[in-house]
């Protein structure tokens, strides 16, 4: 088994070797490490993408807007990931951003995962029938059942989820009531003596 340290170092060097700057190579390496840590096929997909990168061209995107479409080709997931990461604080305001045609979308996931941590919000990443929830860079939830990760995402939505409870107020109250069974009912004597401050503190 390869260690995550080996995965990171080799991914960084390979990324530099295909032409990315050292700084971007460092970002890719952190991302592939994260994917492999979460049990997702980072090395496999990076390899596949890098075997294409010298044969085909991919598009970059400097300013990300609400709707983003490549001019002719597919978006490069790495340049796109870095751009999203760098602009995340302004993108968050848009609540939802859309992209058309991204190659190897799995390589975008670790960038979104880190974005989730930076803005303190969960991020929903959706393309075709595949859904991913990026949870504060702690884990990635997915409905993807197939072993092979799609090599293309045609229509992509990235939604910044507002921080809200996943349960109803009624469900919360029910659980809270149960938790109250660990409390002690205070007698008059306990009211007087068990707390630090007095009953009146007008001094």
């Amino acid at each position: 088994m390869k260690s995550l340290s080996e995965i990171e170092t080799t991914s960084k060097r390979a990324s530099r070797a295909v032409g990315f700057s050292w700084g971007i190579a460092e970002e890719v390496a952190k991302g592939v490490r994260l994917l492999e840590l979460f049990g997702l096929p980072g090395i496999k997909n990076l390899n596949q993408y890098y075997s294409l990168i010298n044969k085909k061209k991919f598009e970059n995107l400097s300013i990300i807007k609400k709707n983003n479409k490549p001019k002719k080709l597919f978006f490069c997931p790495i340049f796109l990931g870095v751009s999203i990461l760098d602009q995340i604080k302004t993108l968050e305001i848009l609540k939802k951003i859309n992209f058309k045609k991204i190659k190897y979308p799995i390589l975008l996931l670790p960038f979104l995962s880190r974005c989730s941590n930076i803005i303190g919000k969960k991020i929903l990443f959706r393309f075709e029938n595949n859904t991913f929830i990026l949870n504060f860079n702690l884990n990635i939830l997915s409905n993807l059942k197939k072993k092979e990760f799609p090599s293309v995402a045609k229509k992509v939505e990235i939604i910044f989820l507002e921080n809200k409870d996943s349960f109803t107020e009624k469900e919360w109250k029910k659980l809270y009531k149960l938790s109250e069974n660990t409390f002690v009912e205070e007698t008059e004597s306990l009211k007087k003596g068990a707390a630090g401050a007095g009953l009146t503190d007008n001094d």
Partner: protein
Amino acid sequence: MNIKLRDPNIIMKLSRLGSFHQSRLSFLRSFLSEFKDWEYKKDLFNLDENGYGIAVYSFTKKDRVYSLICFANKINDEERSDRVIATKWDAAFTLHDGIPTKKDIQRLKNEVPKQEVGRLSYKELTLSRANKSVRIFDHVVESLSKGLQPNSDLLEKVGYLYRTTAVYGSGKFGLADRFRIKDREEINGPFRLEMMLVYLVRQFTFDQVNHVAKNKNPKTAVNLDPKICKNLGIGNSTGLGMAPFIVNHPTLLNNWILCRETALKEIRELKKVNSKEINLFKECVRKSIKNITSWNTESEYQLYKIKYLLKDVRKFLNFIENEFNFQKEHPFNSLYLWLEKETCDECIEYIVSLMMEPFGEIVQPLIREMSSDEDKYFDIPSDRTVGDLRSIIEKKYSNILNIDFEQKKNYKKFWFISKNKEEPRLADRFEEEGSELEQPLAIARDIKKLYNKLLSKNKSLKMNKFLFDNSELRHVIRRAFIIEKFPYSEIQDNTISESLVPIDMLRLKLSFFGALKFDPRSDKWLRICMFQGAPLPNELKYFDEQWVYN
């Protein structure tokens, strides 16, 4: 009195970093303190009459066990090389997490002796190999087998029976990643498991030499005197492999230096010191003279440094014994200021290390601050502006900005990774090929390039926009935002200059390891000694914290 931390522009110069010495903060000393109440055991010692075979040693506390597995092999003299290109060694070692099963040992027997081309698993924590100092080992065997103790002068001169040529950890060759074990309290300090490996290897070398002598002449052989054992350490040959580490781990480097600087600051701020502390300090300085006079090297560079160190330490000793009044307020501040005025860099840093000896209560809590969660500081704050970054660079890299990178001598060298050994190397870019594959270790040059780019941009431009057109500078932009928070994270020098002395980079790291007797063999590699004078495993419970100076 509030003493300021020393200026990174002075301390982080390579010549100064290359003058650092071991101290109470050093990793091998903090390892001994941490593991002193662990149970030490020799679990297996299955060597043949020539000393070849397998041995296992362990440290245990409650449910936690760390086991060193040693594989001693026969090699021919012509196969023995300390260089990283070697493929065979007298002995190979791994530190296993837990008690190894027979199956583990069988698996490791096939992998550990192969070192870099073998594969380890997440159950192994560190990996190393070592070669005998043949001259010493044979002499010791010969003497012991005749019932005599070896020539102590000869042993003292060399200082070890074996020297390691690499110690690997943190995920190399399949070893456990740091994240798997980082929350264990006993290894909350850098390189602790690497230190454990070296320490247990030292014990193996004594057991092996006794075993071989005994087999050579069972009737007359005696064991190596424990006092002699104690004065032997483990040698180490270190090359450029270590140098990029301190560039590639800026927050970790900061934490090491910051702890040293904080300790010095707090000691200088002490208003009064008691007689016990004064006496211990004086005694350490006095005894440490022996460490300098027994420091053997053929390196002219080091001999020159030792000569002035010895002269200045003697001058300092004379000053504290005959002139200085320790009863005055803030005595260590006065002493430090005297050192700056009267002595060389090597002596200043030497005495700074010694100043920590009486003040365990200041030093000890700092040891836990010496690790770093590097990922926490990896993200570039892309909402900051060009103006912010310019100001950081002007404040934190002011000396770097004065370097003229138009001059060839200032960018003559380049760092690369050797295809043959996957190890860092340094070469002349005007005479050798390969500079197009240069590693990102020319931080000074790239920071200056970044600064020049920033000058032409509007100060209010956000980094996310600047980054888009300047992706080739992303790695140094990240660093500049790191140094804003971590003042000692960067070497304030030019690592590709014609005048670069790479062993300064190695010495910095080795001093934090706790190495003694730096012996440069060229400007690119050196030999050192570790654990010389350290307590033996059976003495760990009640050892003298100042063993380095005994």
